[in-house]
């Protein structure tokens, strides 16, 4: 806008409308999104917090009595809640690094220059747009202990049989595998673009200086990629903490509570056991944890960007 003011002669017509109109138009761009999100995002969050401190009347489905921290205390004493947090933590710790490494590794492979490169890259979009609930269901079918083809094929080379969905430890691995199948292509696509945008002259210089591939990788490629790796990690993290559909379709949290990730657990407590107030308290706790960790990751990203 200041540009307009500086160019006095040509801008008379605009200035005639006055600054007020200008300010209005600035906010007008933001208004639809801001108002919508206020109604469907900010208000529900506020309402969740309110319910979490109240007793909920199941007859009218409204918050009645203020009970202070009672719901939170109930939740904190609930072993199943801690179990779910732990399960979610294990899932995140296994799945995120695996997807990052695989994603960048595959990107390196499919970036090799040949005629079919564009096609391969396009095909990698497909798993990414398969609904997670479909992914969970189809993998459940392929991993079936009796009729699934994964166990059959592994049996051919003398492995197994594995009870992918029935064994508590394996079930978590299964969830990680399905999630990794669904999300690695996302990382791969970002990584292919990132790898292609690396400046070539630096590598040429390194080669002329006689650097071997490890030195080149460790002191040039990796530092150049760090900001993108960090940014991709944050995006993937934001998606992974919401994981729900895959666990619901593949294992439904079982066996026992072995794959009952926090979103699934809260969902069941709220909508199957109708414990809305406790669920709200859990949701608030998860919200706070997620926000804090996201802020930490974003700060870390900035720092990493500053370092390199």
């Amino acid at each position: 806008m200041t540009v307009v003011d500086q160019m006095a002669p040509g801008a008379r017509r605009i200035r005639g409308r006055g600054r007020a109109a200008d300010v209005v138009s600035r906010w007008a761009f933001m208004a639809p999104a801001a108002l919508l999100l206020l109604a469907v995002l900010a208000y529900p969050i506020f309402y969740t917090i309110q319910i979490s401190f109240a007793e909920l009347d199941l007859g009218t489905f409204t918050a009645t009595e203020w009970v202070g921290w009672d719901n939170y205390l109930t939740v904190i004493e609930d072993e199943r809640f801690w179990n779910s947090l732990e399960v979610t933590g294990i899932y995140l710790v296994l799945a995120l690094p695996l997807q990052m490494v695989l994603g960048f590794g595959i990107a390196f492979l499919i970036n090799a220059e040949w005629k079919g490169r564009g096609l391969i890259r396009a095909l990698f979009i497909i798993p990414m747009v398969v609904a997670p609930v479909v992914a969970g269901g189809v993998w459940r079918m392929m991993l079936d202990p009796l009729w699934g083809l994964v166990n059959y094929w592994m049996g051919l080379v003398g492995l197994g049989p594995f009870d992918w969905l029935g064994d508590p430890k394996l079930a978590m691995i299964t969830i990680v595998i399905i999630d990794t199948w669904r999300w690695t292509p996302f990382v791969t696509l970002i990584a292919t673009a990132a790898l292609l945008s690396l400046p070539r002259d630096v590598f040429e210089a390194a080669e002329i200086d006689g650097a071997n591939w490890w030195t080149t990788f460790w002191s040039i490629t990796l530092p150049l990629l760090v900001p993108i790796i960090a940014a991709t990690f944050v995006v993937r993290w934001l998606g992974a903490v919401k994981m729900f559909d895959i666990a619901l379709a593949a294992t439904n949290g079982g066996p026992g509570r072995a794959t009952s990730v926090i979103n699934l657990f809260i969902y069941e407590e709220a909508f199957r056991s109708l414990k809305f107030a406790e669920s709200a308290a859990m949701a608030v706790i998860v919200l706070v944890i997620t926000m804090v960790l996201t802020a930490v990751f974003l700060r870390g990203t900035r720092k990493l960007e500053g370092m390199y």
Partner: protein
Amino acid sequence: MSATLTLAGRRRKRPIGRYVRIAGGITACIMFLFPIFWMVLTSFKMPRDIFTTPPTFFFTPTIETYTSYLQHADIPNRMLNTVIVACGAGLISIAAGSMAGYALARIKVKGLATMGALILLSRGVPPIALAVPMFLVARNLGLTDKHITLILAYCTFLIPYVMWLMRGFFKALPEELEESAMLDGCSRFGAFFRIIVPISLPGLLSTLIFSVILAWEELLFALVLTNRYASTIPVAIAGIAGDSVNGANWGALTAVGTLTVLPVVVFALLVQKWLIKGLADGATKG
């Protein structure tokens, strides 16, 4: 990793590495596509071909699963619901989100930046924290099982997503575009709709398609906010996959799964070039 660069000289020196990479890339691609192939294949099998040892690749294909399941269940109705909800949410989000993204990219007012940061931070809000109050409010207002409720619920994650992508997109455009238009007497609105929107159409379109896809496959809000009339396809699939009483009906699962995935894959492949670019820019310039 040093072979990332595609120097002609290096390629000539180590052609084997390149072939290994190409072979590895193709193998990875086949591995990632196989589950989808298997799903489509299974959907054309008779039950006796589904439950075989070894799992069979050769059989007489039939569309019986499609015809029988589509008649008995309310799949066509759910399909229509999913289309309405996904397109509705996508269109509202692209309109509101792209304007807000433009404001963040171009207009410098202090409060605006804070607001933008807040909205972007909201990408970290777990949907379950919204699903509980939404269910309660919708119930009390008599809004459960209505398309509009689901559309509004999907805006909670689609608007921030569109803003985040389009902000990066608009930032990359030269500012002279609107400046010259505004000098000619256009308002900021006029400049946005007459200049910026037309040249951003590819970006807008691919963002719209991706938003529709995200809404298309959403499960949690659909489970919570609908039950019969406005229920969507993912809910049906979750029901089929999780049927522990009769055991999962694999024929139905794969047939409905194929019907769900097919249109999305076609759209995604149509805009794949912009999609990849948008994803990459969104992650790195966001």
